[in-house]
């Protein structure tokens, strides 16, 4: 009887309520993100199609609107082929690590003021940690498949991700210095103190380095050498099929969405509208709280559009060029930006 009483006491009911709220929040965030990811693929095919004077998907539903759902169903029911000489446990584990690391990053992103699953002090460092975990998914899938194309893709990805992680971390140091915090919500709030309302203006060097590093980190064109289809079939996921392939695909697009969110939060002012715009149109200050998420998403979509735009425009770099850009241009530029930010902070 005592045990039951203690279980149903006020304190434990409170804890259960809190747990319930967190679980509901997680379900909402993951559900909405996966829907966004599905339609990010549709949007990418449409945007690139029109840029190359094609129509893109048009048959399934109105203007091909149900295409991502049809693709998802197709992938779900495809045969799951595992190479005979693959390292089975790691072959199974690799796509899971890749997907989990991408989804875990969502937990520290503030979508609007007050809506974040885990409001931790080291939010930005947590994102770095999760993105470095994602690299294991790629390397392991390359090794465990026991195929030379996968293996080369995995090796390329390993060295690429390690090199560009440094440039990416350094590019965000300027933001950390100006905000004085690693908490993503605090970084967004700190940007309202500056006249431009976003760090992209005073931190333009950091923003440039971040954009280039974000493309390389997510293995997107013009740095998609780990999955260069003209040289390596499909790179690290050549041997994957059916739903395991879908996990890699979803993970890559989730990673893109997270990079776009970091760009929106750290450089573009997150859910806030820059102060000089609200000074001109004071009506915007009276927007309801739910509309903040629309502002945040608009910034994320703009960055995603940039991803597609670059993919439709630029050819792929050579591998030595990729390494030279990372080590000889981006890292010195990011270090220079840190020194400059520090000097300006001392003088002003």
């Amino acid at each position, binding site marked *: 009887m005592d045990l039951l009483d203690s279980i149903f006491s006020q304190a434990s009911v409170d804890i259960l309520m809190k747990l319930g709220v967190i679980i509901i929040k997680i379900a909402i965030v993951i559900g909405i993100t996966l829907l966004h990811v599905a339609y990010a693929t549709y949007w990418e095919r449409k945007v690139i199609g029109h840029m190359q004077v094609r129509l893109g998907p048009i048959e399934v539903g109105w203007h091909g609107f149900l295409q991502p759902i049809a693709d998802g169903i197709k992938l779900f029911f495809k045969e799951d082929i595992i190479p005979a000489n693959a390292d089975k446990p790691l072959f199974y584990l690799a796509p899971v690590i890749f997907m989990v690391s991408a989804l875990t990053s969502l937990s520290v992103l503030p979508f609007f003021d007050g809506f974040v699953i885990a409001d931790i002090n080291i939010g930005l460092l947590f994102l770095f940690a999760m993105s470095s975990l994602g690299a294991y998914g790629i390397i*392991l899938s390359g090794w465990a498949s026991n195929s030379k194309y996968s293996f080369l893709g995995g090796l390329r990805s390993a060295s690429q991700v390690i090199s560009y992680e440094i440039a990416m971390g350094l590019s965000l140091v300027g933001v950390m210095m100006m905000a004085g915090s690693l908490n993503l919500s605090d970084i967004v709030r700190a940007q309202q103190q500056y006249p431009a309302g976003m760090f992209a203006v005073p931190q333009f060097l950091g923003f440039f380095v971040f954009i280039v590093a974000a493309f390389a980190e997510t293995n997107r064109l013009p740095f998609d050498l780990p999955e260069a289809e003209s040289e390596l079939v499909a790179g690290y996921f050549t041997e994957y099929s059916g739903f395991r392939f879908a996990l890699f695909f979803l993970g890559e697009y989730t990673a893109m969405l997270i990079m776009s969110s970091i760009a929106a939060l750290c450089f573009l002012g997150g859910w806030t509208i820059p102060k000089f715009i609200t000074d001109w149109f004071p009506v915007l200050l009276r927007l309801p709280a739910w509309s903040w998420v629309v502002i945040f998403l608009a910034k994320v979509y703009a960055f995603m559009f940039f991803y597609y735009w670059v993919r439709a425009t630029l050819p792929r770099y050579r591998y030595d060029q990729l390494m030279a850009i990372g080590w000889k241009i981006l890292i010195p530029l990011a270090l220079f930006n840190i020194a400059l930010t520090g000097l300006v902070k001392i003088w002003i």
Partner: protein
Amino acid sequence: MLPELFFGYYASAIVIFSLLVVTRSNPVHSVMWMLLLFFHIAGLYLFLNAEFIAAIQVIVYAGAILVLFLFVLLLLNLREELKVKKFVGSWPAGLFITAALLAIVLSAVKSFVPGPAGKYSVEFIKQETHTKALGKLLYTDYLFPFEIASLVLLVAIIGAIVLAKRKTGSK
């Protein structure tokens, strides 16, 4: 009760994973257990309210150093560990040394005295945030050792580049 359970889980998991790392015959599997081990060590740091150290543990050890381990292993393409008699044959000597070390550590445990409580209490860290508290200490009171450590690392980096650089245009 909860803290003890938490610590007990992490401490025993770390010991078990360390054993798994050294006993796997496939080196890539060893590295994967080591990855799990590093995450548990980061968990222990979080348990001590050292969130910055926990994040750095994952970023530096799991994200950079272990990836380089994996990179070297992939290039060697070892499916099974080689057993060379020269390295494996002298295990009794190794066992004796580790047993002696264990005896020394165990005998030292008796004279353990917990350090005096300083300024950095849990409440202070929570209010100041761990990153800020650590940064302030590192760049004021411990600036000199910090600079020496960074200089030592710089020497190591330059040394590695000099060793690895291909000699071009030699006479």
